[in-house]
């Protein structure tokens, strides 16, 4: 029996902004067709689109290539489509684009490949609309998490984001924070540095800020079921941050008395980290020490970050058999809704669908993701 594996970070992208037009309402389709306003790009020094570890070419990222390169040895893959929806200041256009991205994901990817799951685009700058979108996509079990960009005007623990976090937790959707963001906010705590290299390497600082913001905000007391996925940001920075937080918390607990356990306990319980790219130390024994310092193998989730490519590392080979199973499958299956049982129900429903020509009138309890999606996109038609 092949090794079960969930690839927790696989990219797809719209080949052009026009692709989204048919997923917009009539009004926005017409206006976007005329104005052709795509996302405002992030302010970057010089984004090296040619670099394989960064490029995401929508035209080349076909379902076929995904089947060959990702799904050939992964049981399931979770799609990330970064569309820069956080860059739209328009309070209705931004959310409309987010909805269009999610409908495109459902119809172009999820409907065509049952082994795919998706991260939902939402607008952190328009929290009310983000909550509505979370409620909408939550009906489709194939959307397994909510996507936020690392660059942000403020930490995601800020109370303004709580309704968004609450909606995600309500539907057992982890919130994934990933590299990038077109918010106009700086990529480092000291704004823009000189080179793209500095900007890229310093991205971990933004993730660390969100992690601290979330832990100290007390949101995990309110939402014990909330899980945060730190995607594509390595993890070598994690032990030193946990040590520092734990030490300083003893003196400053009085400011945040609801943080009643050492901050590292919240990190281990509520945060998960994808393992590509891995910024770990070069030597194997040092890599083992890093995992030991993190203090849990439950926080690591396998990811290829396809199509981005990195130098190989020996992390998976260094793990024990049990650890390897956890990192490849169990850790993800534990936080993403419905994965293991849905696998079984899909096999059942494939057989059922072949036998049944007409769709059932009543929604059965083991409704497949595809049918849910149809119902969900029907709702979407009436959205402005």
């Amino acid at each position: 029996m092949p090794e079960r594996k969930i690839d927790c970070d696989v990219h797809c992208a719209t080949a052009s902004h026009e692709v989204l037009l048919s997923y917009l309402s009539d009004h926005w389709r017409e206006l976007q067709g005329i104005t052709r306003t795509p996302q405002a790009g992030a302010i970057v020094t010089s984004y090296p689109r040619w670099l394989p570890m960064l490029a995401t070419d929508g035209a080349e990222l076909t379902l076929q290539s995904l089947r060959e390169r990702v799904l050939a040895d992964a049981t399931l893959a979770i799609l990330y489509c970064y569309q820069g929806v956080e860059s739209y200041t328009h309070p209705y256009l931004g959310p409309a684009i987010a909805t269009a991205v999610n409908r495109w994901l459902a119809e172009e990817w999820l409907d065509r490949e049952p082994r795919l799951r998706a991260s939902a685009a939402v607008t952190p700058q328009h929290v009310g609309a983000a909550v509505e979108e979370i409620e909408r996509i939550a009906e489709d079990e194939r959307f397994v998490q909510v996507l936020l960009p690392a660059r942000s005007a403020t930490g995601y623990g800020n109370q303004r984001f709580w309704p968004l976090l609450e909606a995600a937790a309500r539907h057992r959707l982890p919130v994934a924070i990933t590299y990038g963001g077109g918010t106009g906010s700086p990529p480092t705590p000291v704004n823009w540095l000189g080179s793209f290299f500095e900007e890229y390497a310093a991205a971990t600082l933004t993730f660390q800020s969100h992690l601290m913001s979330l832990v100290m905000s007390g949101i995990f007391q309110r939402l014990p079921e909330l899980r945060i996925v730190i995607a594509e940001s390595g993890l070598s920075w994690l032990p030193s941050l946990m040590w520092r937080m734990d030490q300083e918390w003893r003196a400053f607990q009085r400011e945040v008395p609801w943080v009643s356990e050492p901050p590292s306990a919240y990190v281990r319980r509520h945060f998960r980290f994808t393992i590509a790219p891995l910024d770990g130390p070069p030597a194997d024994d040092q890599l083992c020490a890093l995992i030991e310092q993190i203090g849990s193998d439950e926080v690591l989730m396998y990811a290829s970050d396809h199509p981005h490519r990195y130098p190989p590392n020996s992390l998976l080979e260094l793990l024990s058999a049990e650890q390897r199973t956890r990192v490849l499958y169990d850790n993800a299956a534990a936080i993403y809704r419905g994965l293991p049982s849905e696998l079984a129900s899909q096999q059942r429903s494939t057989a059922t669908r072949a036998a049944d020509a007409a769709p059932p009138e009543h929604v059965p309890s083991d409704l497949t993701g595809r049918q849910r999606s149809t119902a969900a996109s029907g709702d979407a038609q009436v959205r402005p």
Partner: protein
Amino acid sequence: MSRVVVAPVSELPPGTRTTVRVGGRAIAVFNVNGHLYAIRNVCPHQGAPLAEGVIVGELTSSGPGDYEFDDCRPHIKCPWHGWEYDLSTGQSTYDPTNDRVRTYEASVESGSEILAGCALEDGQGGCRLPGPYRVETIVVSVEDDYVVLDV
């Protein structure tokens, strides 16, 4: 257990603290709003003298934004790193079950009671009067009350 006279009550009014050495142990004695607390004068972290720390009220929380403040339950903040210990129990706020500072029973007794107790226990090796003060000192001020430590 032995008993040690720390000071006349008049020399340890509310809001003050003092230290006393009993055998090899340094002990800090606090008067917080008329209540006496005594703890080992050594922070379990790196040995800082806790007697030099700031006293703060107890702070608990039922969730974000909720600050439940109890002024009647004083804690000492270590003067070096700000770590906190409950003066009543010695428990740390960061790891109450594993990290704590030793506490002692402090009380107020009259000079005559102390003398009587001493007479009773004298010769049995259990009485350590007069602690930092000499027996003669107590004898001459037998009318006063004293802060007494059970160690």
